[in-house]
């Protein structure tokens, strides 16, 4: 065997090492980290978990950590990792003619049986193309033969898989813990009998939560998507999102890989629960991870003990969509702090709601490292917050920041969105007003009671309408309007003591809106943009506007027709074959309520019927004997 053909030959690895040595950050590609899974790949199915962004981002992703563990627990599979090579490595690979490789065994990706991409945000799609192209794998599924790996994808963007439907062979829709195992069982069985790719896809399409886009064809009329037609009779009409019913018993991350370089979230993430009961109308995660499912406190502490021992990390993050809502939060926080503070382990909350935070917990956290606190009022006026169903008021926010300032914090971040449906200039100016009140709250405290100087960062991102939210029909405001509102806010914030303004570039938000609600025609646009040099689109310094503009023009499409158009409430939606469990009738009802400024209660208080007829069978929130009921009853006593 010549060395070019032998994927793991020593001289090939030596050549790769020489390339790795030339990169800016060699530890992105080097592997060999503590707790990396090592297996003899001979006779095993080779699965490459591909993250279409850099190592330091991909290694921080909890879902990938879980799937890596789930797949490697299987005796018949070896799951390895691969990340989008940074531009320096991409160039080195192209110049040398080497193919993109896995971290664990440095095997070229085209030698794997299956590639599984994580779709966390729309702006990573061109990196998928880059990774396929650097592996010598044809971009379109229709152009890939039996030799090419099966290209799969999972993650939140699968809610609307259509813009990349021509590239991916098979999508995993929903929670992956059980779904990937079900798929691998079917795959393993068929492979043993020498099944073809088509036979595998046919069998896989029968598994709940799997979508094989090649079995459907899209139709358009007058430049608009009209419907999806099944070309394969046995394929399901609707693809139902998979959920793990008992999260507490579900597989978790196992021993975390301990990176050498510092990664974005360099800590142990304990997922307290999945789903969120609040129903903020802009938030896709709030709808597509329903119903709420919690892990038991004992299970979480057990994971924390084990992970700390196995990794040597010094930070634990209590992770979820709204950690303050965890049923036993006031038991969990003191328990975790009490257990680990002496070992100098710090505890962080990535997502805290203003109204759920208690002063006691703040003071307890003070003992450890004091990182910044982040609050997300999302909008500046009560009217606007009611439209988006963000059930917090000004008093909640001001009380929370006061508590934080009294506990010694002097850095707070305030997150807002601009361009929300029905927003007026008054709502924008309301953001500045709120920031002014926060600043006043700080400086009106006696000097000895507070920190030296306030560092209040006001961040304003641009609203992006997303599928499976009540705002999925709403347009995004135009780029000119985004810039005008940003300027208005910037000038209104001027001169407020201790306040800094931070806002996101709007060109990428527009493309994100376009791809979030786009249809299959956007696949060709994406390929065209990639060929013109687009990649790492979410990195502002890499965003290549010209490549995208030219590619849209080439296909006779515009970004505006997807991003800035109001979709009629009864129009066909490109993602209507995806059943995310939350019904379209519920979303329509919520949309109507938002326009009236009517607030919908947290589903812990009352079932709002978001799953329609599936409420009883899929969500246990209000079932007799549910732990959520317990809390409510206890609270009423």
């Amino acid at each position, binding site marked *: 065997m010549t060395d070019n053909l032998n994927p793991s030959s020593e001289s090939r690895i030596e050549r790769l090492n*020489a390339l790795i040595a030339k990169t800016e950050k*060699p530890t992105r590609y*080097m592997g*060999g980290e503590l707790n990396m899974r090592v297996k003899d790949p001979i006779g095993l199915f080779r699965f490459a978990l591909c993250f279409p962004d850099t190592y330091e981002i991909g290694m921080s992703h909890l879902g990938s950590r879980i799937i890596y563990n789930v797949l490697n627990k299987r005796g018949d599979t070896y799951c390895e990792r691969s990340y989008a090579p940074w531009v320096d490595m991409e160039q080195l690979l192209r110049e040398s003619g080497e193919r993109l490789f896995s971290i664990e065994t440095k095997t070229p990706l085209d030698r794997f049986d299956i590639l599984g991409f994580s779709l966390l945000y729309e702006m990573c799609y061109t990196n998928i193309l880059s990774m396929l192209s650097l592996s010598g794998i044809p971009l379109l599924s229709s152009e890939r033969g039996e030799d090419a790996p099966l290209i799969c994808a999972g993650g939140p963007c699968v809610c609307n898989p259509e813009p990349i439907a021509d590239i991916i062979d098979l999508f995993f829709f929903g929670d992956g813990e059980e779904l990937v195992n079900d798929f691998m069982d079917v795959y393993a069985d068929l492979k043993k009998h020498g099944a073809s790719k088509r036979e595998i896809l046919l069998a896989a399409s029968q598994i709940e939560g799997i979508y094989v886009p090649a079995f459907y064809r899209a139709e358009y009329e007058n430049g608009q998507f009209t419907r999806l037609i099944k070309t394969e009779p046995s394929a399901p009409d609707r693809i139902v999102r998979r959920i793990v019913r008992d999260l507490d018993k579900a597989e978790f991350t196992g021993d975390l890989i301990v990176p050498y370089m*510092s990664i974005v979230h360099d800590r142990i993430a304990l997922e307290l629960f999945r789903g969120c009961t609040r129903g903020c109308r802009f938030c896709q995660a709030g709808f597509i991870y329903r119903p709420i499912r919690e892990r038991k406190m004992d299970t979480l502490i057990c994971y924390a003990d084990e992970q700390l021992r196995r990794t*040597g*990390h010094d930070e634990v993050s209590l992770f979820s969509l709204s950690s303050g809502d965890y049923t036993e939060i006031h038991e969990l926080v003191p328990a975790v702090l009490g257990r680990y503070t002496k070992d100098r382990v710090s505890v962080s909350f990535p997502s805290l709601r203003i109204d759920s935070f208690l002063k006691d917990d703040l003071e307890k956290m003070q003992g450890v490292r004091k990182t910044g606190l982040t609050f997300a009022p999302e909008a500046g006026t009560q009217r606007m917050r009611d439209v988006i169903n963000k059930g917090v008021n000004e008093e909640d926010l001001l009380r929370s920041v006061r508590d934080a300032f009294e506990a010694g914090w002097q850095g707070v971040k305030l997150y807002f969105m601009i361009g929300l449906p029905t927003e007026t200039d008054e709502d924008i100016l309301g953001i500045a007003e709120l920031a002014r009140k926060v600043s006043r709250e700080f400086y009106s405290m006696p000097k000895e009671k507070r920190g030296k100087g306030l560092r209040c960062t006001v961040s304003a991102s641009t609203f992006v309408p997303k599928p499976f939210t009540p705002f999925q029909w709403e347009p995004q405001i135009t780029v000119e309007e985004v810039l005008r509102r940003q300027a208005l806010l910037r000038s209104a914030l001027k001169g407020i003591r201790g306040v800094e303004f931070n806002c996101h570039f709007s060109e990428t938000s527009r493309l994100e809106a376009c791809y979030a609600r786009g249809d299959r025609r956007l696949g060709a646009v994406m390929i065209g943009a990639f060929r013109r040099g687009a990649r790492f689109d979410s990195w502002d310094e890499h965003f290549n506007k010209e490549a995208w503009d030219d590619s849209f023009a080439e296909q006779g499409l515009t970004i505006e027709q997807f991003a800035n158009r109001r979709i009629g409430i009864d129009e066909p939606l490109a993602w209507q074959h995806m059943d995310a469990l939350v019904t379209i009738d519920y979303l329509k009802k919520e949309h109507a309520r938002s326009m009236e400024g009517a607030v919908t209660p947290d589903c812990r208080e009352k079932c709002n019927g978001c799953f329609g007829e599936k409420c009883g069978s899929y969500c246990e929130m209000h079932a007799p004997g549910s732990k959520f009921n317990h809390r409510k009853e206890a609270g009423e006593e």
Partner: protein
Amino acid sequence: MRIIATFSKLAPVRFVSHLDMQRLFQRAFRRAGLPLAYSQGFNPHPLLSFATALSVGYTSECEFFDVTLTEEVSPDEFTDRVNAVLPEGVRIIDAVDAGEFKASLTPLMLSAEYDVTLTFDPSVDKASIENAVSELLGGEIVVDKKTKGGIKPVDIRPMLIDFRLLSIEGSKARFALSGKLTAEGGLPPELLFKALYEKLGVSAVSSVHRKIIEMDWSMLK
């Protein structure tokens, strides 16, 4: 108590930067359950310091760190417990109790010896290499060195103690190299190689392994 340890950093971790090595050891100590002492102040950090940094890409069998623990742990036990939890490519070779010695290890350093392999492109014959090396040894070696104030020409010859061709096989040539390595600075091997490549009119890929750091241990007693 304070422990002084010698460790190796081999091929699997040769790209791990100095800063990342510090975190690697901190995490290893935590996994080993060792009672680390921390600095006082707003942002306490473990009392762990390295004698010197090793360039990214180099390997070594003679790096030093010292670490302070809040309880007595025998150096042998320390070695065993840390080695049990280190990733592949890093090993504690030896550990001693620092006793009364409280100062930093860095001022004890005198010089370092390296095993060097240069893979030339195109390959060069033995006589040419030997000529070039003896020319380098015979006069000033002025190289462009990056300093705080920008790039400056510096003569590195006074830092060079010995540079010898050991063997040659195809395009690969092995050398023994020793140079000064002190708290004030040391011989930068890469700059010496660059001077050699310029003399030979070729390029090469270098592989450098640090074998010994000479230390003035008399200060420890």
